[in-house]
Structure formats: C-alpha cells, structure tokens
C-alpha cells in the first residue's frame, strides 16, 4: 500500500513537474531566421555558438528572465543549467568577447516587440501572440 501511495505521490509529483514545464514556442524577426530549425541548431544559436544567420544577419537572442516560468522552462529545455550557471555562462562569453549577450525580458509581450523590431532576433516564449514575427518550427513542431 505504502508502495502504491509512494508511487502515486511520485507519479503526481512527476506529473506536476511536467505540468510546470510549459510548452515553448520560438518566434523570430522576419529577417534572417529560417522558418524551421532543428533542436540542436536552436540550442547552438541560443548558447551563442552561432553568431550569424545564413543570410549574414547577426543573431540576437531574446529570452525570458529565469525567474519567469517561460524562462525557467527555457533553462531546463535548452540550456540544462541553473539561473546562476546561465548568468555565469553568458558573463563569461561576454567578458571574453565571444558572443553578444541575450536580452532578457520580464514579459512575453516585451520580448515579442523586441523580436519584431530587431533584425535577426530570435526569442523563446510560452505563448506566441499574433504580430509581425515568424513562428519557427523546431524539428517540424510549433512547440517543444
């Protein structure tokens, strides 16, 4: 019985955990960013490893702050780091001039406006609204 209860708790806990990981969507500026990307390419872009798009447009990363649900999900799904680790990661890159640091936003709306106005910008949001941006499919899926 105890085992059943424990299993249930763990199941629900795990479910709850999965329930906290929101589906994320990738939006981008209309310029430079391809319509579909593989997850590995997305990770590479978001980790600052890729600096320019195929047409030469400079890559600009826009992320939700890590204290937001979308930001937290992004940490887990893309970076696999804690918030501090992410900060240190980007600080190290910026400090050594290896990459341009991402822009962090408190709201999806702000992020969406930034992406729409910045050529080559790509951002991760939990619920992409309508606007002058592209919705990038990752491995053929609109969310991940």
């Amino acid at each position, binding site marked *: 019985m105890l085992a059943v209860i424990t299993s249930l708790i763990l199941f629900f806990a795990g479910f709850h955990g999965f329930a906290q990981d929101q589906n994320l969507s990738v939006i981008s500026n209309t310029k430079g960013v391809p319509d579909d990307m593989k997850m590995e390419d997305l990770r590479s872009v978001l980790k600052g490893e890729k600096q320019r798009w195929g047409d030469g447009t400079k890559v600009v990363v826009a992320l939700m*702050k*890590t204290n937001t649900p979308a930001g937290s999900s992004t940490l887990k799904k893309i970076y696999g780091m804690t*918030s*501090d680790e992410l*900060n*240190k990661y*980007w*600080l*190290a890159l*910026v*400090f*050594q*001039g290896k990459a*341009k*640091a*991402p*822009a*962090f936003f408190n709201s999806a709306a702000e992020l969406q406006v930034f992406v729409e106005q910045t050529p080559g910008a790509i951002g991760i949001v939990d619920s992409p609204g309508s606007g002058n941006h592209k919705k990038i499919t990752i491995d053929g899926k609109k969310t991940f």
Partner: protein
Amino acid sequence: MRFGVKSKIWITIIGIVMIFAFFLLIFFPMQQEKYLLKNYEKEVQTLANTVALGVKIALTEQNFEGVQTAIDFVNKDKRLTFVAMIQTDSSFNEQTKKADVKKNVFKSYPETFSPDPGWISNDTMIIKWSPFSTDMMKGQIMLGFDTSEIIKSKKEIRQTSLLVCGLILLLGFLVGLWLARQISVPVLALRDAALEVGGGNRNKYVIATQTDEIGELGRAFNEMVSDLRQAEEENIKSNKNLAASNAHLEEALVELKSAQSQLIHSEKMASLGQLTAGIAHEIKNPLNFINNFAEITSELLNEASQANLTPEQRDLVNQAKDNLIKINTHGKRADSIVKNMLQHSRATAGEFQFSDINDLCNEFMHLAYHGIRATNNVFNCTLETNFDPRLRPVKVMREDLGRVILNLLNNAFYAVNEKYHRLQNENTDEAHEFRRIVTVSTQANEGNVKIRIRDNGNGIPEEIMDRIFNPFFTTKPTGSGTGLGLSLSYDIVVKGHNGNLQVESVAGRYTQFTITLPA
C-alpha cells in the same frame, strides 16, 4: 670681483634663461607627467568601475547590456593589456580562526593572457581594481593598461620642453645681444669717450641716436664736451687777454719806473741847476772884483816897471806881474765856468719855432767838426749822416737844441779821438784798421722825432752810466771839460722840450745818444 655692464647683462640674461630652462625642462614636465599619470589612472579606474558595475547588474538583474557595452568599450581600447574578472571565495579557517580568502581568475581577456591577482602597477603597466559583490558571486574587476602611451606622451612633453627651452635660449641670446647693443655698447663708448675727454681731447663725441635714457645720456655728454670746449676756449682767450694785460702792465711799469727815474733825475737836476745858478750868481761878483783888480794891478805894475828900480825890485815886480797873469787867467777860467753855470740855469729861456731838424743837425755837425779842427788840425773823422726825408719841421728852441747837438758831437769827437790814440799807443792790429766814425741820423715817427748821434769811440763804462748827466761829472782831464755839457743838454731836452735823452753804450765799442722830441 668686478663685473662690467656687459657681464651683468649676460649674467642676468643667463640667470633668467636658466630659471626658464629649469621650469621648462624639469618642473613643468614633472607636473604634466604627474597630472597625466593621475588622469590615466583615474580613467582606468573609471573603466574598471564601469565594468564592475556592468557585471553586478548582469548578475543581479540579468541585464547584460551594461557589461556588454563596457567590455566592448574596454576591449577596443588599444592601451588595454588585459581585463580580468577575479572571483573571491572566502572560507573560515578553523585553525587560524580567520577567513581564508582565495582569489581566482574567473575569466580574462585576452584569453591567452593569464594575470596574477597579486599584480600591482609598475612602470610599464597600470593595474586598477574595482570590486563587485552579488549573492551569486563576489570578486573584482582587474584592469591592466600599458603605459606606453604615457611614456610616449612624456617623451613628447620632454621634446617639446627641450624645443621651447632651445627657443628660450636662442631668444635669451638674442635679447642679450640686443641689450648689449642697446646698453653695454653705448655705455662703454661713453666711458671711452669720457676717458679721452679727460685726457685732453675736447673733440670726442659719442653717437647718440637712441631715444631712451642712454641716448639722452649720450646727448648730455656731447653737450658737456661742447660746453667744456667752449669754456676752455674762453679760458684760453681770457688767459691771452690776461697775458696781454700783464704785458701792458709790465710795459707800463717799466715806463713808470723809467718816468719815475727820469722824474727823480729831473728833480735832482733841477735842484742842482738852482743850486748851481745861486752859487754862480754869488761867485760872479767877487770874481769880477778879482779879475778887474788883477788887471788894474797888472797895469800899475807895468807903470811901476818903467821907473828906476833896483834889479831886486824889478825881479819882484816881474814875479808879481807873472802872478797877476796867472790870477787873471784862472779868474777868466772861473768866469767862464760861472757863465756856463748861469747858462745852465736859464737853459729853457729860448723861444720855440718850427725848424727843419735835418738842416739843424747838418749845420751843427759841420760847426762842431770845424770847431775841433780849429783847435786840433790833425784831427780826422768820418762823418756819416742818415737823415729821414719824411721829417716835417718841428717846433723847437733852435739855439738850445743846437747847443745840445754841439755838446753831443764834441763828446763824440773826443771819444773817437781818445780811442784812436789809445789804439795807437797799444799798437795793435785794430789800430791800423780803426777808422773814426761819427754818425748823425734822424727818424720821423708817429708823434715824435728821433735824433741819434753815434760814435765808435771808447764807450761809457757801465759803472758810471748813471752819473753822466750829473752836473760837473766829467771823465776828461782837468781843464778840458767843465762837466756841465751833458747836464745842460739833458735839461734842454727834457725840461725845455718835454722830450727824452737816452744813452746806449758798450764799453770799447760805441756810444749812441738818442734825442726824442714830441712832434
């Protein structure tokens, strides 16, 4: 030590230039380097602070925009040697009971550069620290900037200072030359001119074209020299006038002494003349009695001698007659002397009339010569005349002046004859060559007439020269002269004609009497 004006000018200029050189080469560069270094350190510190602030914002607010901008700015700076983020980790040490602080380089740029957290600034690099502290991470931003730019700037400052110092030196040299030309050269020229003027050159001037005080000094000096020369010329002129005045005074003094001497002599002669006249007058009456009774007695003896007398009586009568003859002879001689003395007393009694002096001299010269020839027929003498034809008739007492000429000529004839006989007796060579010469000359002058009677006789000895015009003074043997001739002549010329009678003689060679008469 004595410094000249030029030395003082150069010492001043060099002193000023040295002060400028000190400030330009040492003080100002040091100050500039100090401020430059201070500003540089401040700038680096500001950059470090900015980066640290950016890091803090990035770590706390997840906003990397600031640190990105700061890092981009720092990385672009060419002076950057490195920028490093030092992470500080503290842990409590149980053994030491103190916190152990470990400093590790978190990241650095350039990546290949590995700075040591313990580094400090040195000559080639300035290192600045700026701490940051967040919940996630504590540490410091360490910025290293090289000082090559500072060294280059220092070098440029020193080069500029050296160049400016060189220009100052050149300017100082030019100013020194200019001052020397403007001050030293004129002052030295003035000194030399003053020495030359002091040495007696009163024509030494200086060139004074400057419009400043030096020029004014030069002009004042020139005016002084000019005034000095003028004063000297006036002094010389005054001295000449003074010398001329002195000469006139001396001449006047000589004339005064001569006049005084003549006056004394005149007074003396006048006194003697009066005395002589008085004596002559008193002697003349008894002398007349002597002469008259001698003649009468002689006649009586003549009558007595015709009577019958014994031979002894006749001898006595004859002796008495001889005595009477002698008495009569000497009585007449005494009478003659008395007459001369009386003539002496009335020497100025004649009348003035215009007379031709040349004719007068000629007449009395022949009268005197024939007079002496009458008493001495072997006498021979050459008469020379030199009468001035310009001579105008002069108002004189003709007879008296004639007596003067006659007296002087008689003396001249006597003198040449005496010399002739003396030479004959000595029988020298001069005796054969000697020729008796008496010269009479006249001369017309402005305001007077001169008559000169010169003989080449024995001359007058110096010791008796001042006595020859005294009455009764004679060098002739007794009976040959009364000693009244020159005395009488002197009275006639001086007192009678207001003239002058002078004698000039060299013993053994000549005698010349000069009669000066006012015309």
